[in-house]
């Protein structure tokens, strides 16, 4: 595997809430190899968005990065002065936030959005910006002549989402992070968007990290997948490792809980129980209250991430038994 472009190491993030400290990212490490399309999956509330916010140090007011280092292309970025970090954001790492469609300014034409975005970071002629914007809009299957002169409300949800992606690519970043890019889109628009992201990845060789709660969404496009549960990453591997050779009981259970339009449904089962509270998580392995393999050690000792195959890591005491029936 190629070296990591982005490397998150031992990250801890907490929100101060009324009932105490809510640790939504708990000692998480994650490598995104250069030019890879990586998916980060997990159920809603498990901490995916928090990781992404922390990567760019864009925490909300009550959120605190308590520990950890984040390397981008070898440079630790959390300790950079704000001005330097701002340059890395957008110029090196672009980001498409959850529900980003609503972030377009309703009284600005798309062309003005494009120009403003670039001029906020560097000097460049309007003509050159618009030329690049046109190429990117074509890349996302939009008609530049029509879209550049439009106001946001004249575009559908799917079109706005594609405009946002074109905007994020304007500064020619090396990495694109997308948080739930397909929510609020209709099924067919979702499929087009995913296909388009795959094309962008191939054509521009850009490194991608796509965050989603929809497990099926990553199966087609991702090369590697990380699985998150209750503020922890439990398993990381190639998409095939995760979908066909899951070694963590949660991953296996989650995939077996997702119905499909094809294949056998008779073995599909929900996972019993509920995800834990992040304010008072269970001791030991966080999945133990729901896990079919749990034993005494699982209730007492937290499992560490272990390499179980080439590029495949799992945090489970009994990973060897997963999948055996």
């Amino acid at each position: 595997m190629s070296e990591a472009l982005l490397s998150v190491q031992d990250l801890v993030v907490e929100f101060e809430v009324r009932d105490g400290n809510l640790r939504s990212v708990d000692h998480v490490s994650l490598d995104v190899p250069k030019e890879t399309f990586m998916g980060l999956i997990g159920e809603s509330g498990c901490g995916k968005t928090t990781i992404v916010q922390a990567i760019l140090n864009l925490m909300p007011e009550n959120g605190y990065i308590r520990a950890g280092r984040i390397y981008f292309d070898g440079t630790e970025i959390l300790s950079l002065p704000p001005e330097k970090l701002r340059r890395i954001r957008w110029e090196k790492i672009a980001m498409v936030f959850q529900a980003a469609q609503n972030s377009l300014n309703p009284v600005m034409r798309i062309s003005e959005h494009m120009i403003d975005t670039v001029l906020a970071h560097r000097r460049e002629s309007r003509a050159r910006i618009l030329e690049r914007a046109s190429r990117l809009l074509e890349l996302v299957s939009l008609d530049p002549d029509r879209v550049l002169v439009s106001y946001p409300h004249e575009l559908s949800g799917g079109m706005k989402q594609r405009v946002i992606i074109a905007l994020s690519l304007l500064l020619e970043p090396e990495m694109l992070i997308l948080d739930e890019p397909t929510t609020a889109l209709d099924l067919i628009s979702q499929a087009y968007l995913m296909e388009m992201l795959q094309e962008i990845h191939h054509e521009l060789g850009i490194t991608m990290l796509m965050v989603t709660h929809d497990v099926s969404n990553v199966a087609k496009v991702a090369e590697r997948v990380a699985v998150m549960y209750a503020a922890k990453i439990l398993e990381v591997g190639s998409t095939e490792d995760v979908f066909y050779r899951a070694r963590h009981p949660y991953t296996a259970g989650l995939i077996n809980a997702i119905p499909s339009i094809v294949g056998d449904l008779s073995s599909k089962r929900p996972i019993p129980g509920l995800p834990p509270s992040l304010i008072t998580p269970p001791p030991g392995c966080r999945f133990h209250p729901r896990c079919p393999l749990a034993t005494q050690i699982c209730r007492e000792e937290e499992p560490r991430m272990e390499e179980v195959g080439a590029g495949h890591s799992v945090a489970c005491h009994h990973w060897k038994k997963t999948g055996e029936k």
Partner: protein
Amino acid sequence: MTELLRLEEVQVVFERGWIRKRKGARAVSGVSMVIREGEIFALVGESGCGKTTLGRIALGLLRPTSGRVLYRGKDIWSADGKGLRPTGQMVHQDSYSALNPARTVYQTLAAPLRRYGVPRSKLKEEAEKLLEFVGIMPPKYFLNKYPYHLSGGMRQRLVFARSIIPKPRFIVTDEPVSMIDASLRLSILDLMLKLNCEFKIAFLYITHDLATARYLAQEGKIAVMYLGKIVEEGRMKEVLERPLHPYLRALLSAAPVPDPEIARKKKLLQLKEAEPPSAEAPPSGCGFHPRCPYAEGVCSREEPPLRDFGEGHRGACHLIEVLPPWRLM
């Protein structure tokens, strides 16, 4: 199976504008369908196609602009059908707003139990039985909890517990699992299957998600809606194996699957337009023609009728006989 509910040429036009009423969107346009006792019927379509509106019509909550709604053979909106309301219930996606936040689990169930004739002395016992039945365990522990103490899945179970008190013959569920964690979604669908199996309650399951529709209505039926019309219907197994309508084919080709090999092999059907037209200015002829890759002249001129292709598998497309054979991969 005997017929429970029949919709005949149902149409709903919502008026728009406060001061000068203008004719607005035709939310439902000439829909006919039959739901039988104990049947599971999935109604699938993308946002705004009219699913919720049709669900409300089926329950007698909304009077159609034209067309008839027959419950066990009687027109519920005719003079002599007055007062006749289908004994159905609605469960929608937001279980939180469906429950009174100031009422405990016990109070939520006790009021309707009283209304349906359970004596005061038996209320607690009956409430516990209901909770146990829908999988809220242990019941005693939950009786005095408030809705905000419950997880989304638990709340949805409580809504189901309450909805079966009037002994409904059918339940309309509108995206009941879209706000439930993925790992727990099947458990709510399984609860619906249990209610169907034990009490023979019929279900109209409204969703945009083909995969959960397939799971729930494996042995039942599916109808696919597009711009206020049913464009295809039939038995679930048959319809998903041999989809007739290009729109359903597009939906199937776009549906993500949790299996990388299949997902990569699946070909996305390329439409002429990715986005649906607005319901306020529906296209002429077949509503799908501006997006349909197969469309011919007739498609923009004439509206295709729903035609039967055997055993109740029906499709509304002019070109079904000449479309290429269907392949998912």
